């Protein structure tokens, strides 16, 4: 720990004079981060580099990517600053990010088991966050909800209609969480777990931030969120609590230099600043509350601050394969949307019937009903494609538009949605039959 701190301090000492050209003028940054995050950084950066001004342009991640893409012919943006690694992957694939060799040294390569930086140097993680569950205490008291501890708790009947999640197709970080569950549990068991929670969902939101907003407002009981949403909500005074499950997901927040930056020296200075001890400390501010990637910074954190470099829960995270995730990115998003987001009514009806039949069975056991119930659960859990099919050239071609004729995306979607609808109807009738037998 001490050694790391010294290394970091040395790095800053050596790093500062190493800029070929002193940064000056306007540094333009496109970001999805809120004002509560960008304002403290703007202040700290401009203080560290007098004469430099940070121009912050807030756009949601999708709009930011589109903006950089559409304006590439006369790029006016120096930096892209956002959470979702997939957005950076898109930019990198299109050659819109500049490769950069970090001057600062001594930072760890991984947080948990997630690599912090892009191996080719196109973008860098400057903070980490863990996924977990956030709930509204007043809501929980009024609805007599227990405190959730594990993901699987959210599948319990008591949480029916009380849970919210962002759609993985709309939120890169939620996508990582879903992918982590799928890689950790395996394709079939993973989807079963996801759909069991899915049946209890109140909402699938189309923005990441809507989940904490709904919990803060008391419209939804429990949200599946990134930790800093919960921490900053607590800092703002909302009656919410947060817990990491024993297997959490680490999601990094990233910074990348846009190709052909108008102010290259300024852009490089900001990247180095973010990773410097001063820049890392800004993360501890109550309105930001993200986990620094510099282990030394935790010495200055409040007592209850989670430390992924020490906390066993973060190390437990299964090794995450980025390649595997990449090959089926669209398939997983579309499967979630077509079988859960857009079929929520059918899924919930079937889940509710299963909850009722389970309760009835607990009072009066019936072997035949139990068998029916198991079939109903299997019907919900079934997926229209196997793991191998999801990553197959045919399915990928449908999403990317391959030269050779494959099924079109719209055809696949219709097929998957039809499959889910059918399965949920089957599950509903089996669960209802089970309930009749158990009564």
């Amino acid at each position, binding site marked *: 720990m001490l050694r790391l701190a010294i290394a970091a301090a040395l790095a800053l000492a050596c790093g500062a004079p190493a800029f070929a050209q002193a940064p000056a003028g306007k540094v333009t940054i496109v970001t999805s981060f809120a004002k509560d995050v960008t304002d403290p950084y703007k202040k700290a950066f401009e203080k560290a580099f007098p004469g430099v001004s940070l121009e912050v342009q807030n756009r949601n991640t999708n709009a930011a990517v589109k903006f950089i893409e559409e304006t590439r012919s006369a790029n006016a943006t120096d930096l892209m600053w956002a959470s979702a690694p997939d957005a950076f992957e898109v930019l990198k694939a299109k050659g819109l990010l500049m490769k950069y060799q970090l001057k600062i040294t001594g930072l760890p390569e991984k947080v948990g088991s997630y690599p912090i930086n892009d191996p080719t140097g196109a973008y860098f993680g400057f903070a980490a966050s863990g996924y977990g569950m956030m709930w*509204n205490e007043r809501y929980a008291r009024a609805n007599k909800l227990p405190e959730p501890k594990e993901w699987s708790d959210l599948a319990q009947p008591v949480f029916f209609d009380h849970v919210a999640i962002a759609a993985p197709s709309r939120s890169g970080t939620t996508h990582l969480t879903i992918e982590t569950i799928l890689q950790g549990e395996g394709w079939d068991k993973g989807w079963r777990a996801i759909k069991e929670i899915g049946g209890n969902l109140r909402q699938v939101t189309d923005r990441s931030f809507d989940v904490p907003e709904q919990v803060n407002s008391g419209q939804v009981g429990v949200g599946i969120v990134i930790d800093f949403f919960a921490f900053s909500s607590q800092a703002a005074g909302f009656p919410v609590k947060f817990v990491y499950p024993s297997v959490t997901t680490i999601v990094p927040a990233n910074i990348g230099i846009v190709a052909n930056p108008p102010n290259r020296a300024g852009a490089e200075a900001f990247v180095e600043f973010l990773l410097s001890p001063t820049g890392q400390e800004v993360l501890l501010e109550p309105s930001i509350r993200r986990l620094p990637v510099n282990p030394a910074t935790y010495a200055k954190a409040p007592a209850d601050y989670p430390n992924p470099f020490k906390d066993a829960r973060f190390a437990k995270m299964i090794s995450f394969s980025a390649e595997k995730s990449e090959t089926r990115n669209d398939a997983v998003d579309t499967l979630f949307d077509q079988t859960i987001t857009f079929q929520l009514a059918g899924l919930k009806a079937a889940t509710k019937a299963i909850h009722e039949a389970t309760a009835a069975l607990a009072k009066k056991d019936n072997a035949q009903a139990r068998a029916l119930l198991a079939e109903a659960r299997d019907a919900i859990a079934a997926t229209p494609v196997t793991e191998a099919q999801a990553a197959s050239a045919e399915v990928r071609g449908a999403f990317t538009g391959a030269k050779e004729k494959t099924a079109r995306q719209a055809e696949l979607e219709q097929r998957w949605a039809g499959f889910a609808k059918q399965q949920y109807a089957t599950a509903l009738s089996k669960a209802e039959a089970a309930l009749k037998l158990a009564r």
Partner: protein
Amino acid sequence: MSAVVGPEKISARGSAGLRAGEAALGLSIAAFLLVFVMWPAASVVYVAFTEKGTGAFTLVNFHDFARTDLFVRSLWNSLYVGAMTVLWACVIALPLAVLTTRFEFRGALLIQTLGFVPLIMPPFVGAVALQMLFGRNGTINLLLSDWLDVKIPFMEGLNGVIFVESLHYFPFILINLSASLRNIDRSMEEAAQNLGSSGFRLLRRIVLPLAMPGFAAGASLVFVKVFDDLATPLLLNVKDMLAPQAYLRVTSIGVADPMGYVIAVVLVALSVGCMALAALVTRGADFATAQRGGGGLARRKMRRLETVMAYALVTFILLLVLSPHIGLLLLSFATIWSFSPLPDAYTTAHYARVFSQSALYVKNTILYASLGGLIDIVVGTAIAWLVLRTKLPFRHWLDRGATAALAIPGVVLGIGYLRAFYDVRLPGGVPLATLWIMIVLAVAVRRLPYALRASYAALQQISTSLEEAAENLGATPGRALRRIVLPLMTGGILAGFVTSFATAAVELSATLLLVQSNSDAPLAYGIYVFMQSPAGRGAGAALGVIAVVIVCACALGAQFAIERSQTVKGDPH
């Protein structure tokens, strides 16, 4: 009704010079629509007609649309919600419009102004405020479940969408219908009264039919707007409607996916079709009244009981439609508001926080919205005049082209503007798309249909015999237009300006892509920036309140001008 005078007569007598002028005007508007609507939109939407991967032309995507259950279900849901919203919006708007224009009603000006406030729903914060009041655990439902142990699902499913949309968009009907009612000549009513008609029969047989242009304009706007609105369904978590489907696809699957644009094309086609239908409804009849100077309908005094009932009704309606804004106000002063009927405590800290930045946002908002509104009424009035008063070939396509803008999703237009104008360089290498004037144009294009419908309705009510009279007395057609037609259209034009201005002031979806620096950012963008974090909720609400107040002040000014112009025309009130 007055003598039917078709447009033929006017143009038959119009000089060759005027006809050349008409053609020039038509061509310049066509050029404006082509450059600022069609080209940017087409640069994105053409994907709907291409095969993914190869880019070859195909219609198979439309076939896929028809075969996908989700899209077909979305289409029916959108049509249903649109129609039901028009119905409920009428229920809200009709009493307000009739009471304030037909009766001596203290505070008519205030009601007319407050009645349009619901149109100004600041992004994000408006949604939060609505949920805090009407949501599953909003104020009303928390109180109801405390007292009676029931909850009313105000904001669930399609009915929730209809509820919120009716509150949100009824002002389109209110504004246009009121403008129309003010334009009806008193002599029509008096003639009917002389013939023995009165009361409800008079209203049903004479007044409302004569106000049909304004009603048709308002109702068709409500329908199309609801049809194309994505914010409300997404707020209520209803995803199986067309506009949210288009938006979700374009923004999450990517610009290369054709289906998002197929939906956009379907939206545009149905919106334009709906407007054409509304035009058809009002085409068969003539709504113009020739006599002027009576100054609108006579305002009747109400008996005491009637007065009490009228005020009770108006108060109830206003309370209902303004509840989102009352919620917004509470939110902006609240410390913490979570799962409780009212906030825990109140503070002015949020206003202090936004105060330093809001001046710039306010300046930009007023600049963009008023310039946008101005462009809209100029172009809108010109199109209305060309369509109704000339025989220019293809003039209806100007109307359709402008209307199509309503159905182009904001994000599509935003990307289109970047794509179409970023590579156009000004001297010095500055891309055209980075100028703030592009935000003005994007906003103007998106709000043009509102101003167009209002001008159209106003012109429909003016008899061509007035222009002919002026011309007989030696006025040139241009002078007759300037001195007779435009002054008589003032009410409608102002109504158009107010709607365009008010809705432009809270526009976000296209702006989010086009704002190039904080110094160019409008209020809606400021709200967006705050509403990304839990601590920013109060501050965002405070900015939202500021937006509403500013737009209200401007609108009140416009309403005042309408009233004054009525007085000038000889209305004793």
